[in-house]
């Protein structure tokens, strides 16, 4: 009897504690959900569901730079403050999603307009999705089949996919991107981790600049130029800062330790 009361008391305390603390286990996104961003600034005001933006659909065709530098999208959800009128004018999503632009031989569907009919609405809910789309999920797994694999994130090794020529990423949008001179790329360098015995981190500028250019990271994400001038800790990275800006929710996640901590230590 006493034991039961004790158990119930503990559970009661536990429940109230957790109700305050809010729990700690996060649900890990499934491969087709990884990189999905919920954009919710003005959609509800307009009477539409928030936009579910999937990175995988876009990153298989374009570099990060094209959208995040040339088109001007922000690096965190809701930071860009996109309005339907911006899209209708040919900015942001509307840069490509204007009904006339094509990728290869496919015409890219138009995005927002100032008014829409019942038929148009079907197009709106492609992005302002009301419910999960099994067709999109299936399309992902169909795409996944052809790609080199990795354990985490989307399950796709995007880097290898490009190396192997399976993906040819567009880095220049006519009328939006500027003609740039080719970049002299910095070499790779090693960074020592804080925990003794963890293999050193090999950072490759080349691997990053081929998709990002310079201004995406510098100086907004990475302030210090001198190597090691700012000490980053995994705590901050897991919190979505520095490397974690991308390698938390979009690029390969930081749970894949040896992708970065790859220098073979002696002994």
């Amino acid at each position, binding site marked *: 009897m006493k034991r039961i009361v004790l158990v119930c008391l503990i559970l009661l305390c536990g429940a109230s504690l957790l109700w305050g603390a809010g729990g700690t286990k996060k649900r890990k996104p499934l491969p087709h959900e990884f990189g999905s961003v919920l954009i919710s600034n003005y959609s509800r005001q307009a009477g539409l569901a928030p936009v579910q933006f999937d990175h995988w659909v876009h990153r298989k065709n374009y570099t990060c730079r094209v959208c995040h530098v040339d088109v001007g999208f922000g690096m965190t959800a809701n930071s860009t403050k996109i309005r339907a*009128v911006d899209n209708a004018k040919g*900015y942001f999503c509307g840069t490509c999603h204007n009904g006339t632009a094509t990728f290869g031989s496919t015409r890219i569907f138009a995005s927002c307009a100032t008014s829409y009919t019942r038929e148009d609405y079907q197009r709106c809910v492609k992005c302002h999705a009301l419910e999960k789309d099994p067709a999109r999920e299936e399309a992902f797994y169909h795409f996944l089949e052809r790609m080199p694999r990795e354990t985490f994130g989307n399950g796709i090794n995007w880097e290898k996919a490009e190396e192997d020529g399976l993906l040819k990423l567009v880095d220049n949008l006519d009328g939006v991107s*500027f003609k740039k001179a*080719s970049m002299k790329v910095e070499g790779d360098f090693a960074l020592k981790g804080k925990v003794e015995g963890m293999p050193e981190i090999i950072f490759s500028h080349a691997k990053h600049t081929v998709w990002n250019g*310079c*201004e995406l990271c510098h*100086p907004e994400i990475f302030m210090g*130029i001198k190597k090691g001038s700012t000490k980053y800790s995994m705590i901050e990275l897991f919190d979505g800062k520095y490397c974690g800006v991308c390698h938390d929710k979009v690029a390969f996640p930081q749970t894949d330790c040896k992708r970065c901590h790859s220098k073979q230590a002696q002994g």
Partner: protein
Amino acid sequence: MSKLTLKANPAVVAVLLLVLLWPAAARSEEAWLAVFEQTCSKTSEAMTLSVAELNALIEKCGELQKIIETQDESTRKVYLKRLQMCRNLYAYMLEHKKGGQASK
């Protein structure tokens, strides 16, 4: 002949003026875009530019900012962000060069 045209119809004159001035207006809008392109297309070679060049580019960015702030909301939103990234990169490079330390 021209006297005839001028006397004929003030509306025609107005239209003629508009036609003449319109491209100029459009040109001035495109003008800042062209300057924007000129200024911000150098980000990929920012490492090789000299301190003087970087200073000039940053100044140009300041001027561009004033022009962009007079544009409509959508243009402002997009181009101010792009300008900010471009300008900050140049400032970053400038600081690095002035500091005189190697990045490795």
